[in-house]
């Protein structure tokens, strides 16, 4: 139906061999295909060593694998220059890096624009910058269906705006940001743009430079790879203009007791031993994604997303938090249930083998906006199938029936 060989695709994921597992928590963490696991094991069993300093053959091999991973991630994000790829601990680490290294260049009264839709990882670092530097935080509102209200850009973006930091894809509503309009507003006042790409990464590859943004942050664990590693992509000139965020080994040029000079980017922003095997695994995950038939995957996920949305619409006491249509929308489907807390929904669904996420999804201002304590979220990956959606709907009926 989708043009995908679902049986073959699912066989690539060892964890899906578990009976009665319907994993719909991909917005939090995706599962890892055997091809990626094999690369990580091969690296750790054949090339494990520290990078950039050793001259023995293991160190040479580890450095080559690590820098190859950087090149792969550059290709995955459409960057011509692998020096624009900074390895981080994840999206949160990447955004905090920018909040310090770029943020520390801002003056009191300068403005940073965020949105009501942001994950805490793209809100709290800017609040901390505000408190540290006297920067003014301005908040872009959202529409009723959970998209950025871009018609209000003109009201929050002004002459003092230095950065617009917004999500590429909402981790709650699944809405895809119209990046072109954000970039246009930023360019009009010579501001930079940062995109939180955590929820978008699995649906790449992307051409991020073509989007016109300046910074892009992603996490590997949401794109079929290991935890503990991610990427900050930034334009070369942005990186070159920024001071280091953290100090330590790897990021220096010379050190005396009196002073230190710093390495060029990207090493300037990679203090300490990096997550080497994880970076190699991330590159393997990127290659795995690149090999997928992208159009077929998107069609498959859109169809399943449509089934989830229709299933919710057919059931009383459920309220979709996000766009009801499939345009400019990723397979993240959050909903509120009248009279049932999301944790109780998730607990009942777990008894059906369905893994969901319930709670505020690290987006408490958004929950307050929709006047809910939390929502239940089903988030899909390409290995999900109709059986997963069927199990979700059956379990949801059970939950709704228990809590009348």
């Amino acid at each position: 139906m989708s043009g995908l060989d679902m049986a073959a695709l699912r066989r690539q994921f060892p964890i899906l061999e578990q009976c009665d597992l319907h994993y719909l928590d991909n917005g939090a963490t995706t599962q890892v295909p055997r091809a990626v696991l094999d690369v990580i094991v091969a690296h750790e069993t054949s090339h494990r060593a520290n990078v950039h300093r050793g001259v023995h053959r293991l160190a040479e091999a580890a450095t080559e694998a690590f820098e190859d991973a950087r090149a792969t991630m550059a290709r995955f994000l459409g960057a011509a220059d692998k020096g624009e790829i900074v390895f981080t601990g994840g999206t949160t680490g990447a955004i905090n890096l920018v909040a310090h290294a770029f943020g520390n260049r801002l003056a009191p009264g300068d403005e940073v624009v965020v949105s009501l839709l942001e994950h805490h990882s793209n809100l709290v670092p800017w609040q901390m910058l505000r408190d540290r530097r006297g920067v003014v935080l301005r908040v872009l509102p959202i529409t009723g269906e959970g998209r950025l209200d871009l018609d209000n850009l003109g009201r929050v973006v002004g002459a003092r705006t230095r950065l617009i930091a917004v999500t590429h894809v909402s981790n709650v509503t699944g809405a895809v940001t119209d990046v072109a309009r954000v970039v246009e507003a930023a360019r009009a006042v010579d501001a930079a743009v940062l995109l939180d790409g955590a929820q978008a990464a699995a649906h790449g590859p992307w051409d991020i430079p073509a989007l016109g943004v300046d910074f892009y942050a992603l996490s590997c664990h949401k794109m079929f790879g290991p935890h503990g590693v991610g990427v900050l992509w930034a334009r070369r000139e942005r990186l070159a203009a920024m001071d280091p965020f953290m100090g330590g080994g790897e990021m220096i040029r010379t050190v005396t007791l009196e002073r230190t000079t710093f390495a060029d980017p990207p090493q300037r922003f990679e203090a300490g031993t990096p997550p080497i095997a994880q970076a190699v695994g991330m590159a393997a995950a990127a290659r795995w994604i690149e090999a997928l038939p992208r159009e077929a995957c998107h069609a498959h996920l859109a169809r399943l997303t449509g089934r989830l949305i229709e299933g919710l619409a057919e059931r009383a006491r459920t309220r979709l938090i996000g766009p009801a249509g499939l345009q400019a929308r990723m397979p993240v489907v959050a909903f509120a249930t009248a009279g049932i807390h999301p944790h109780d929904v998730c607990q009942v669904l777990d008894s059906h083998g369905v893994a969901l996420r319930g709670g505020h999804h690290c987006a408490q201002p958004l929950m307050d906006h929709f006047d809910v304590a939390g929502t239940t979220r089903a988030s899909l990956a390409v290995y999900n199938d109709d059986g997963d959606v069927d199990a979700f709907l059956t379990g949801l009926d059970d939950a709704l029936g228990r809590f009348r």
Partner: protein
Amino acid sequence: MSDDLYQQAILEAARRGAENRRLDRPDGSSTVDNPLCGDRVTMDVCVRDGRIAAVGFRTRGCALCQASTALLADAAVSREPGTLARAEDEVVAMLGHDGPPPAPPFDTYAMFMPARRHPSRHTCVRLPFDALRQVLADATDGGSS
């Protein structure tokens, strides 16, 4: 696995815990949040002669949190604050260390024994204890009697 977690006794207690039973003139009130899930419990108390005279509450939480709030409000009246601390320890031991149910009048917490298998839900049961402990500390420090 969750079948007996949502047994009838818990659902009935949860329904009571979902009611708004705030006190009109409490000696103290406290609101606590569970940062992991956004659950929120507000507890009111009146204290007379070193004992809890009345307990009020309002919850925004899951069934376990609501049920625990209702049970705690029932059991706490006429108890000394120290009794609550012992009961909380017993609930923690029952959930996390396979301990026996708490002594009366907190023995109703035996209905949460199926939650032992779900460590992530233990905080839901404990949240009203956090709120009551906090408000009692404030109320007794303030000299209410």
